[in-house]
């Protein structure tokens, strides 16, 4: 990656730090104080300090993150069972197979559904909840803690609990029958028409607290004077939220959306735990990563699995770069001027 990109991300960083509009407060952004040279050049002593301090992190990071990623790209060109060195070079064959496999395409399709649905379900709900929890009320802080609990509960626990609750003879169907909604009972997890929605419900439950916390933090940074001024000018509550809070929350929403998109493309744990590798396919909730684990490691095809990983990475990269280019970029240009268009 080039230096210019770093500068770009740093610039973006500092713009995100100050979502407050120019007239909003008397606070002036302090320029990043870090690393201004007091004299030219770096002494050997400083060099030593830099090496000693950053060396271990760089070694661990390169060894366990960068190296495997490079190896994945390399192994992807081989038919290889994981024993000895890979020798059976097959060129792009693995990639051709992946992209032509209807199972992989189905998995990719599921990922895209999950991506879009996560944004349009979780986003609005989380914004409304954050607005709600930003109002004066008793017990606000305890509610804020409770809403965050699912995020702390591990995927395995959530998966185990939900697969028991949602099974055909499980608690949800029983509950529906008990309250007289018996004809709403369903095979939540095995019916291909429903399973994806069950998954969306579980994902919303698990990750909405994270979004709410982010949005609340974003709202706390919006100066109150703006809403006060608007209220004096006769704006109603919802008008204020629509015209002031939402636009000023833009940078936070865009960051959240980015995290959510990446999460949706890399989804694995919950699906694998609740459905397992075989049922996930038939229930219509398989994802690219469950496909990768099923046909890579579990089938002993390490070359093929690595190739799937590379495909997943490039799909994520394209989406991320596209998002960065067309959406996040606004934040570097000034978050305020264009927020109203959203």
């Amino acid at each position, binding site marked *: *990656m080039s230096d210019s990109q*770093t500068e770009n991300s740093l610039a973006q*960083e500092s713009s995100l*730090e100050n979502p*407050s509009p120019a007239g909003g*407060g008397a606070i*002036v952004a302090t320029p990043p104080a*870090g*690393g*201004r040279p007091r004299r030219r050049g770096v002494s050997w002593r*400083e*060099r030593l300090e*830099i090496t000693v*301090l950053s060396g*271990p*992190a*760089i070694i661990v*990071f390169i*060894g*366990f*993150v960068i190296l*495997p*990623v490079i190896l994945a790209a390399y*192994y992807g060109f081989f038919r290889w069972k994981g024993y000895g060195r890979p020798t059976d070079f097959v060129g792009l064959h693995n990639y051709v197979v992946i992209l032509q496999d209807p199972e992989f395409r189905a998995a990719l399709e599921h990922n895209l559904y999950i991506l879009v649905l996560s944004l349009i379900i979780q986003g609005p709900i989380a914004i409304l909840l954050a607005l*709600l929890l930003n*109002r*004066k*009320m*008793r*017990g*606000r802080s305890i*509610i*804020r803690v409770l*809403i*965050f609990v*699912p995020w702390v509960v*591990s995927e*395995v*626990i*959530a998966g*185990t*609990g939900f697969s*028991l*609750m949602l099974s055909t003879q499980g*608690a*949800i169907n*029983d509950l529906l029958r008990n309250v007289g909604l018996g004809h709403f009972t369903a095979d939540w997890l095995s019916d291909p028409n429903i399973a994806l929605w069950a998954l969306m419900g579980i994902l919303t*439950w698990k990750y909405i607290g*994270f979004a709410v*916390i*982010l949005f609340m*933090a974003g709202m706390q*940074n919006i100066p*109150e004077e703006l809403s006060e001024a608007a209220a004096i000018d006769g704006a109603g509550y919802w008008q204020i939220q629509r015209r002031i809070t939402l636009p000023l929350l833009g940078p936070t929403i865009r960051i959240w959306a980015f995290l959510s998109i*990446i999460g949706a493309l*890399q989804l694995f744990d919950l699906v694998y735990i609740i459905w397992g590798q075989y049922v996930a396919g038939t229930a219509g909730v398989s994802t690219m990563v469950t496909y990768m684990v099923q046909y890579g*490691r579990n089938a002993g095809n*390490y070359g093929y*699995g690595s190739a799937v990983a590379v495909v997943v*990475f490039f799909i994520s990269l394209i989406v991320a770069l596209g998002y960065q280019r067309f959406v996040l970029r606004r934040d570097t240009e000034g978050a305020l001027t264009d927020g109203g268009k959203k």
Partner: protein
Amino acid sequence: MAATTLEPTAAVPLKRRKSVEDGGWGSPTTYFVALVVVALTLAPVAYIVLGGFRTNSQITTNPAAFPNPWKLDNYLEVLKSSTFWQQFFNSAIAALATTVGVVVLGVMASYVLARYHFRGRGAMFALFASGLMFPITVAITPLYLVIKDLGLLDNLLGVILPQIAFALPTTVIILVPFLRAIPREIEEAATVDGCSRLGFFGRMVIPLSLPGVLTVGILAFVGSWNSYLLPLFILNNQEHFTLTLGVQAFSSQYSTDTAKVLAFTSLSMIPALVFFSLFERRIVSGLGGAVKG
């Protein structure tokens, strides 16, 4: 906690003013909606915890009901099993070692990025930031092979080291603004008083960046406690399992004994919940800070 809370942003006074403390009454609708949300949030957790107090026949005949009568047997049985404790300690060791590793390596690297000026600083930041593009899922297949070549398969170290590595990008991104926010005057004063940069690091930086360090540490701990994919690949032997794998193994092994599965599951989520409730404020403000900077 230290009295010096150093926020990475300049917007601190605004934050203080805006935050409405508990107190004052909102409208009934607000409370109603909040109540419904809390109920929906807690229902699955309650189902797991309460299910552990029931018997299998209770669960079969009446899947959605309260325990009647309450039974402690399931919980006691799990608490008496050596498997549970073995896996509990494995999880604890992995989580603690990951946390320490992330904090130590992360603070050192972030300090360099925040306060040294040298050729390649941008490249180094980009290197770590690029890690955000490589979630563990992408690297897991070859990572498994790297761990195998290092002879760390079925060894907690094979889980800990990659977890540290994969936590470094977020750590660096959270900590760098914190460390950068330490006023230059403090450093200059320290230099005048004859403190070297490394001395400054030990005496001033660590205490002043404590809030950021705590946030990073908590995220690492909870992340490790809950991690699934990496242990799934690396650990094969039941006695080396962490609790997440344990829960799954247990639930497939005793698939007919639902009540016991629920008891095992709810006991295994307690540590993360306790840890979280202790540091809730830190996590929440830390996440806010992470997004802003």
